[in-house]
C-alpha cells in the first residue's frame, strides 16, 4: 500500500484516504446505531421478562397460593385424623361429661318432688330407668360421638364448607380485582409475544435475548474491526508524514463514535433472583423457582443515574465523578488532541490542552475499574455457594438470593476499547505532533 500511494499525487492520496475512511466511518456509525437499537430492545425485553417472572406474580401473588391453600384445606380437613392417644383422651373427656350429666339428672330426680305429677314422674323414672345400665353404656356412647365427628362424610362436608368460604374470600373485591389485573397483564404479554402460556413466553423471551446478545456481540466486533483497520492504516502509513494530520483527525471521529456507543449501549446486566424456594406446608409441597427481584441492563449513564438518585451526598458526588470521567474527560481529551495538532503553537502548548491530550486518557479507566469491581462484588458472588459445597450441602436446598447471572455487556467492551484507543491515539500524537509534547 505504501508503494501504491507513493505513486499517487499527495492530493489524490489524501482524497482517497478521506473517502475510504469516511466509508468506514459510515459503517462504524451504522454498526453503532444498530448496537444502540439492539441495546434498547434488549432493555425492553428484559423489563418484560423481569415483570413476568417478578416475585409479585409468583411468591407474593394470591394466584399462586390459591392451589396450595386449596390443597392444604382439603388435606387438613378431609384427612383430619385423631391419633389413638388423642382419641383415648377425648373419649375420657366425653365420658366424664356424660357421667356428670347423668349424676346431675339423678340428683334432680332425687329431689323431693312437690307436685303429684312430679311424684309420679319420679316413680316412673325409678321404675323404668336403670341408671347403672345407662352409666354402663357411657363408653359406647362416647365412642359413637367421636366416630360421628370423625366420619368421612362429615369431614367432606366440612371441607366443602371451608372451600366455599375460601372461594368467597377469593371473590372478595380487592383480591379479585388484583387477580383480574394480573391476568390482563399476562394476556397483554402473551399477545405481544404471540404465545399462549407463561413457560412458552419465558422460553420465547430467553430465545429473543440470546439472539439479541449474539447480534450485539457481532456488531460490537464489527465496530472493533473498524478500529483495528484504522490502527492498521496508521502502521501502513507510518512513513507518509503528509497524510498523518488528516488520518489523525479522522481517527478522532472514530473515537467519538466509539465513545457515543460505549456510553449509550448497556454495560452491565444485573440479575438478582431467588433461585428456589422449596418447602412443605402442611403436607403440600410448595416450590417457587426463579423469582426475579431485579433484572436490568444498565449503561454507564444508567449507573450514573442510579447513583445520582441516591439520597446521600457522597453517592451523588461519585455519580458526578463517573459522569465526568466518562463524558467530560473523554470529550475534552479528544478535542485537546485535535487542538494540539491543529491549533496555534501558543494554544497547542498550553498546559491544560497538553494535560488533557496526553495525561487525562487513563482516568476514563476509572469507570472501567468501578464496573469491574462492582461486578466481582455483586455478580461473581460464589462465596456462600462454595462454602456450602465445602460442607456438602446442596445449595438448591436453601433459599438463596442469587446474583450469579450478572454479566458484562457489549457496551463495556466498547468503552474499554475507547479508552485504550484514546491512549494509543495520544501516543501516536506524541510522535507526529509538530509541537512540544512534554
Amino acid at each position, binding site marked *: 500500500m505504501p508503494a501504491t500511494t507513493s505513486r499517487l499525487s499527495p492530493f489524490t492520496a489524501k482524497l482517497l484516504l478521506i473517502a475510504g475512511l469516511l466509508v468506514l466511518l459510515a459503517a462504524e456509525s451504522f454498526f453503532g446505531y444498530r448496537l444502540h437499537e439492539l441495546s434498547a430492545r434488549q432493555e425492553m425485553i428484559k423489563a418484560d421478562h423481569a415483570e413476568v417472572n417478578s416475585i409479585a406474580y409468583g411468591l407474593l401473588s394470591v394466584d399462586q397460593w390459591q392451589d396450595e391453600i386449596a390443597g392444604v384445606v382439603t388435606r387438613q380437613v378431609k384427612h383430619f385424623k385423631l391419633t389413638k392417644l388423642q382419641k383415648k383422651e377425648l373419649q375420657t373427656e366425653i365420658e366424664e361429661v356424660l357421667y356428670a*350429666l347423668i349424676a*346431675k339428672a339423678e340428683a334432680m330426680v332425687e329431689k323431693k318432688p312437690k307436685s303429684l305429677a312430679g311424684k309420679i314422674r319420679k316413680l316412673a323414672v325409678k321404675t323404668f330407668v336403670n341408671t347403672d345400665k345407662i352409666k354402663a353404656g357411657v363408653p359406647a356412647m362416647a365412642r359413637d360421638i367421636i366416630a360421628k365427628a370423625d366420619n368421612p362424610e362429615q369431614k367432606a362436608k366440612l371441607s366443602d364448607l371451608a372451600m366455599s368460604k375460601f372461594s368467597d374470600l377469593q371473590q372478595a373485591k380487592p383480591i379479585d380485582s388484583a387477580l383480574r389485573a394480573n391476568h390482563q397483564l399476562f394476556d397483554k404479554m402473551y399477545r405481544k409475544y404471540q404465545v399462549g402460556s407463561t413457560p412458552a413466553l419465558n422460553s420465547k423471551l430467553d430465545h429473543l435475548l440470546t439472539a439479541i446478545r449474539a447480534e450485539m456481540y457481532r456488531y460490537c466486533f464489527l465496530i472493533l474491526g473498524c478500529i483495528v483497520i484504522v490502527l492498521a492504516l496508521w502502521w501502513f502509513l507510518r512513513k507518509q508524514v503528509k497524510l498523518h494530520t488528516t488520518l489523525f483527525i479522522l481517527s478522532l471521529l472514530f473515537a467519538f463514535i466509539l465513545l457515543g456507543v460505549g456510553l449509550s449501549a448497556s454495560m452491565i446486566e444485573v440479575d438478582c433472583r431467588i433461585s428456589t424456594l422449596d418447602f412443605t406446608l402442611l403436607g403440600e409441597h410448595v416450590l417457587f423457582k426463579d423469582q426475579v427481584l431485579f433484572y436490568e441492563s444498565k449503561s454507564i449513564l444508567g449507573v450514573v443515574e442510579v447513583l445520582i438518585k441516591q439520597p446521600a451526598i457522597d453517592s451523588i458526588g461519585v455519580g458526578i465523578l*463517573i459522569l465526568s470521567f466518562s463524558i467530560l474527560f473523554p470529550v475534552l481529551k479528544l478535542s485537546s488532541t485535535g487542538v494540539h495538532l491543529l491549533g496555534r503553537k501558543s494554544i497547542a502548548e498550553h498546559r491544560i490542552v497538553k494535560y488533557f491530550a496526553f495525561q487525562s486518557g487513563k482516568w476514563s479507566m476509572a469507570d472501567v475499574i468501578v464496573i469491574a469491581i462492582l461486578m466481582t462484588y455483586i455478580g*461473581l458472588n460464589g462465596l456462600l455457594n462454595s462454602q456450602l459445597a465445602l460442607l456438602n*450441602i446442596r445449595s438448591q436446598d436453601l433459599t438463596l438470593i442469587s446474583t450469579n447471572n450478572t454479566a458484562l455487556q457489549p457496551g463495556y467492551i466498547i468503552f*474499554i476499547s475507547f479508552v485504550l484507543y484514546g491512549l494509543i491515539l495520544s501516543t501516536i500524537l506524541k510522535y507526529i505532533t509538530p509541537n512540544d509534547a512534554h
Partner: protein
Amino acid sequence: MKYSFATISLLLGLSFLLAIGVFSAYKLDALSAERESLKEDYSLSNSVSLGLFSIDAWQDRISVVIRSQLHDFHITPAQKKDLQATVEKEMHGLVRKTVNEINRPQKSLGGKLKKLAFNALVDSAELQAQVRPFARTIVAKVASPKSERRLKRIAGSKVTQLTSQIYDSVRVANDTVTKYMYQKYKVSNPVAFNKRINGQLALIDTQQIIYVAGLIGSILAALTLWFALRKQVQLQTVLFVFALLFALLLLVTGSVIPVIEVDARIRSLELQLLGEKIIFQNQVLFYQSKSIAGIVGTLLSQPKPDTIVVGILILLFILVLPLLRLIAKGIYVLSPKKIAENVVVRYLTFELHKWDMADVMVVGMLMTYIGLNGILKSQLSALNIQDKTLQVMTDNGTSLQPGFYIFAGYVVFAAILSQILKRVSSNDQLH
C-alpha cells in the same frame, strides 16, 4: 563504590527498617486472612438462608409461641360465660327437636302411647328450664383443671402433628454448618460462638492497626533518614534502592490484603405474634471481602471471555506495569550508564506512567466503595421498619480495609519517587 563505615551503618539501619516493614506486612497478611476466614464462617452460620429465609427456622420459633400460649391457656370467666351460652343454645335446640319429634302425629299404637306418656309426664317448658343447670354442669366439667390439662394435651399433640408437616431442607444443612463451626471453634452454643468470633475479630482489628503503624512507621523512618542525608550525594543510590524496595513492599502488600469489605445484615427482626415476640438476630444478607489480587483472580477465573479480558487488563495496568516500572527504576539507578540509557529502560522508567494505572485504581476503588455504600445504605434503610407489630433494624458494615490505604500509600510513594528520579536524572543530564 567504596563501603565506608557510614554506608555500612546506613545499609544496616535501612535493612533493619525494611525487616520491620516486611515483618509487619507479613503479619498483616496473615491477620487479614484470619479475619476474612472468621467473617466468612460467621456469615455462613448466620446466613439469612439458614435463618430468616428458612421455613424450619420460622416453624421452630412459631411452635414455641403456640406451645407457650397453650401452656398458659386457662378458660377465663368470660369464656366460660360464652361457652355456657353456646351449650345452652345447643341444648335448647335439642330439647325442642326431641319434643317436636315425639309430638308428631303418630300412626303406630306404640308411638301414640309413648306420646301420651311423654305429654303426661314431661312438661316441655320445665324441661327447657332445666337446660341451664345441665349446661352449667357441662361447662364446669370441661373447665375443671383436670379436663383443661387433658384438652391442652390433645391440642398440643395436634400442633405437633401440624408443625411436623411444615418443613424445608434447611434443618439438615443448618445442623451440618453448626456442627462444623462448633467443632472448629470449640464452642457449644450460638451465643458462645458469636462471642468467640466477635472477640477474635476485635483482637485482630487492634493488631492490624499496630502492624499498619509498623509498616507506615518504618517507611516514614526511612524517608526521614533520606531527608536528613539528602546532601550526602554518595549515599543517594543506596537510599534510592531501599526506597524502591519499600515501594515494592507496599505494592505487594497493598494488592494481597483486602481493600473493600461489604457486609449487609439485618441486625434484628422482631415480629409480634399472639402477644409474643418472634426474633431473628444478626441475619447476614451479604458478605464479601476482596483484595486487588482477589478481584483480578475472580475476573480471570470466570468462563466468560469478556470478564477474562477485563481481568487481564487490570492485571497488566495495575499490578504488572507498576512492578515493571519499579524494576526499571532500579536498573536505571544501579546499572552503568550504557544500560541505563537503553531505550527500553528509559521508556519504562519515564514514559510508561500513562499506562500505569495504580493511581486510577485507587480512585476507582474509592468511587466503588462510596457508590456501593450509598446504594446499600439506601436499600437497607428502606428495610428498616418500626411498627407496632414488626421491627426491623439493618446494619451496613461496608468499609475500606487496610489494603486500600496501603495501596494508596504505594501510589503516593511511587509518585514521590518518580519526582525525585526525574530531578536526579535531569541533574545527571546537566552534568
